[in-house]
């Protein structure tokens, strides 16, 4: 195992039979690297959550979260993002069947749902600012916008990334490289979904309760 990994330390260029196995190991290496990156991303969000919790009562005379959160929109966002996680899973299943059309199709659905999520979130932020709760209103709102916004930024980056992978799938088809890329982006997407569950629970549900 370690032996063949060593022989294949770079991203593959050729895809002939001879080198097929070592590419497989290389892709495994990259997969593991991404898992470790996700650990660091967990710490990043953990720090933001901790900051949010510490500052969650610091309204400084400004509006509280409970006064301004509009739950129907938030619940819609939640279901859209959860569904997109499901469709990204369907994309991976299509890939495992070797169905490139299905794969790209489900990725397009995922991107559209992700874009809908971002649109709703931006609308929500604009409404909040309009109602007098901006990032400089109080420590609470600073923490709110930063935490939720960082998640939104992650989702937006995921959208660009997914589109780039779809183009590569169109060019190269399903091979060991694109397979790894799809697996990684879908892992990333599920991770953002899990983070959102915490945002939903800690920021919104506990905020309005």
């Amino acid at each position, binding site marked *: 195992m370690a032996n063949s990994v060593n022989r294949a330390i770079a991203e593959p260029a050729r895809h002939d039979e001879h080198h097929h196995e070592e590419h497989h190991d290389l892709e495994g290496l990259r997969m593991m690297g991404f898992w470790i990156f996700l650990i660091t991303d967990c710490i990043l969000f953990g720090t933001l959550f901790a900051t949010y919790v510490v500052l969650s009562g610091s309204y400084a005379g400004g509006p509280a979260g409970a006064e301004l959160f509009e739950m129907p929109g938030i619940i819609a966002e939640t279901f859209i993002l959860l569904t997109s996680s499901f469709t990204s899973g369907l994309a991976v299943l299509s890939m495992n069947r070797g169905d490139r059309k299905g794969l790209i199709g489900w990725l397009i659905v995922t991107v559209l749902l992700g874009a809908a999520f971002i649109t709703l979130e931006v609308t929500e932020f604009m409404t909040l600012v309009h109602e007098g709760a901006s*990032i400089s209103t109080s420590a609470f709102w600073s923490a709110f916008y930063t935490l939720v916004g960082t998640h939104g930024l992650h989702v937006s980056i995921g959208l660009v990334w997914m589109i780039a992978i779809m183009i590569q799938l169109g060019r190269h088809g399903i091979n060991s490289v694109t397979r790894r890329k799809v697996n990684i982006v879908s892992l990333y997407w599920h991770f953002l979904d899990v983070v959102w569950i915490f945002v939903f629970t800690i920021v919104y549900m506990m905020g309005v309760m």
Partner: protein
Amino acid sequence: MLDKIKEFASEFFVTGDPLIYGADVSIGLTLIAVVTALTYFKKWTWLWRDWLTTVDHKKIGIMYVIASLLMLFRGGVDALLMRTQLAIPDAEFLSPEHYNQIFTTHGVIMILFMAMPLMFGLFNLVIPLQIGARDVAFPFLNSLSFWLFFFGAMLFNVSFVIGGSPDAGWLAYPPLSEMSHSPGVGQDFYIWGIQISGIGSLMTGINFVVTILKMRTPGMKLMKMPMFTWSVLSSSLTILLAFPILTVTLALLFIDRYFGAHFFTLDGGGNPMMYINLIWMWGHPEVYIIVLPAFGIFSEIVATFSKKRLFGYKSMVFALMSISLFSFFTWAHHFFTMGSGANVNIFFAITTMIIAIPTGVKVFNWLFTMFRGRISFKTPMLWTIGFIPCFIVGGMTGVLLSVAPADFQFHNSYFLIAHFHQVIIGGVAFGFFAGLYYWWPKVFGFKLNEKIGKWAFWTWNIGFYVCFMPQYVLGLMGMTRRVSSYGWDKGWYELNLTSTIGGFLMGIGFLFQVWQILHSIKFMEKDTTGDPWGGRTLEWSIPSPAPVYNFATLPQADEKDPWWEEKRRLAEGGAPKPQSKLEPIHMPKNSGVPFIMSAFWFVAGFGLVFDWLWMAIPGLIGVGACMLYHSFNYNTDYYIPVDEIKRTEAAARRVI
């Protein structure tokens, strides 16, 4: 129009200080000299092809070492400026404002732009060779890490002549570092310089965890890894868990300053102590991140130069890992005086004291390794032996500081300054110097002059004690950190003067090291053996400097100290291990993307510092474009054919 330009320039450039004007001139002249030399000797292509775009871990390691030694020079000059100011009472060498800037940049540069890159340099130079790998797991990412560090460090250093340096201390505590108290751009240089290089550090952590866990040569089980590899693993794991906190903390400070948010402000419900907790949740693990690899280096050296197997291998591994773990539970000991209450302080006092136990275990292991060994006192070993008493005293004063009630007296006094300089110079700097001396022949293929090296060692060591021992006393006498002057009536004069003399002795030690390197380059004493010290681990089994692919065939490592065992077997008349057939070697291609992407980060960071969106936005777009370009590039590797491997190996006099 002309007035406008003049007004802009007077704010944009740092003006009014003869020291700075001198620096302006020297920076300008150096730049002109470099550009002229590169053009005259037609070296631009060489620079781009062989260095700026390289993904070879050995070359990246060399670049890290060069950059960090330059930073050591700058941080050292900062230190000597401060010591000059403090040499006599009521001195007017530096203004208080200038003094604030210098202690800030001294701290940041020494920890983040000297110790960290020197450490990463050693990771890069040694780890793949030590575990029998051909490169790190992600060579492209490795190059990106280096360039992010480099451009981050440059962004930070540019504040020296453009815009003004940060002056709120090396950790930039709010509210002092907030817009309300530091409206200048210095603090923004601080944020973006560290942020950009911090992303690079995080990626290096990921890279080396995967490299060590996945790319070891056949036979090398975890519990057979060399101790330096273990220490890098523990340090890298700590980076993974600590650096994201730094990223967030600096981002929050930036959001406060840029968007008027209220995380750490005094108004709007902000909580400055939150910042201090967060920054030390990173900051305390950070000091272990830099010292753990030094422990690994000492372990390698002490075994090699005692000609004995390292004593207590398992307890060493246990000690490294437990220090990594406990480093996350001690952060509040940096501010016992904050008023968190007795119970909180007790918890953090005890966790701090616990760390002394695994550290003590390591010291005894090193001593027992030397016990009844045939010790040869070469320079790497001298630094190791110099380190042990120094670190013990530093550690002991650390335990004194960890006693929370006593800390109310020691807090922010020169006692603390002396303590952390003793563990960081005596532990980290001595360790990395030892490592550089030890692996220098492997990296460059020639030895460093031992005689000048001994001069450097003794001036550094004596200088260290002369400089910092008086500071313990000064601390107990009531001198607090960061004061830029003191009166004659304090009675601190003699000790401060002594301390300054010690500081300059260390400066002379540094000059000896520079002379040593230049002298050794001139009188090139080649290392033809590949194993000048009688080494024990795999890096000594290949020629010096290592060929681009490191190992022609992957070595089999079934025992600890595989190269030592192999040599012993051969000496006893055994047959050499059968080597597997040569095969084409798969290598990564060079790439200019890391350099260009990091340059875009620099542009974006500079734009954000001055709030110039016309500059920041294109910079960030450039960063994104580079990422996409790399993602779409499928032509990133090549094979070294067997013939070429044979030629290279024959040239290195190791016929296969």
